[in-house]
């Protein structure tokens, strides 16, 4: 977002652009590890979805379909909470985009 001058600001410091934090791609928080989805093992329990702090688990029609790497911070909770064996979510090395 372009930096606004004082004359352009909404009154009272309000922010009317609700939900616009989505412009910030927090995927950049990841430090070399990312979760990888192995759909073949997934039972679609959606534990990964309920425990992801960044809404980075994509669910469509009740099924886990993938990870939104734009926002995934690589915390790894999804891989720990995934109940399957072998896990449908594992942490793997990632090339850092510097």
């Amino acid at each position: 977002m372009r930096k606004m001058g004082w004359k352009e600001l909404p009154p009272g410091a309000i922010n009317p652009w609700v939900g616009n934090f989505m412009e910030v791609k927090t995927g950049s928080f990841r430090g070399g590890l990312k979760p990888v989805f192995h759909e073949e093992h997934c039972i679609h329990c959606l534990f990964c979805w309920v425990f992801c702090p960044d809404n980075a688990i994509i669910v469509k029609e009740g099924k886990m379909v993938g990870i939104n790497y734009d926002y995934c911070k690589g915390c790894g909770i999804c891989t720990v909470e995934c109940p399957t064996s072998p896990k449908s979510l594992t942490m793997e090395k990632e090339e850092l985009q510097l």
Partner: protein
Amino acid sequence: MAIRARLKDLATLDDKFVSGHGLCPGCGIPLMLRMVLRATEHPIVAVNATGCLEVCSSGFPYTAWKIPWMHSAFENAGATAAGIEAAYKALKRRGKLPGGDKKIKIVAFGGDGGTYDIGLQSLSGAMERGHDIVYICYDNQSYANTGGQRSGATPYGASATTSPAGKKIPGKLQWRKNLTEIMAAHGIYAAQASVSHWKDLFMKAQKAIEIDGPAFINVLIPCPTEWKTKPEDGVQLAKIAVDSKVWPLYEVENGKYKINYYPKKEVDVVEWLKPQGRFAHMFKPGNEWMIEEYRKRVNEEWERLVRLTKL
């Protein structure tokens, strides 16, 4: 109207708190929000005390909130929410609500800092006056946003930056304030929940919001940054807190105590303490008495809670 607590159904509801926020990787706060913000069909107006959630979700010009959200100061989420509620009552009565008459629910969020300590007065006052608000304390057991200073919610023995484990003094030597009990003493609905037990949290949020009057929920929030733990272990740790009776899941409704979850097997407090860097000094030789004291009091508090359910 009750919403079904099924993940498949909950996942179809829109996120009212979106990605892009600056909370730490592995932070438990968004897990709590996911359940609370889906717990009612009525529009929610959120009020937030200064703290982790507020700072990381509202950095101008960005906001992670898709619902009306207000922050004014640190110690007054209770009072600010009460003010919005008073205006809601007045404007509704006078037919002046923007966009026409409707039911709106006001939910205040405060960290343990802004609730147990500096915010206790305004919370207590709002609850005593009977405002129709829900107050959710997201308890990560320290003033996390400012680097982990001790709060009234910091557990016994924990090393925090203002109660550090040093050569002479081994961390915080005061027991935690029992805020849930303090709130129950106001004669309102008061409950304790954990992000690990999402369904229990959801049901409590639903109940609390449905109540026409004040309600309070204290939610345990794993904080890898200040607990000095691995981010991926947060939910498991919260689970261990519940299973080891460090953080019982219970509710007080109309004065009646109910424990919602009786741990199926014995889990010693050591399982809760060992994985956390903030308790590491308690495992040094010579400090065994700290773990003994901790274990003793956790069990005493549990026994007392069980007795209360029998009243």
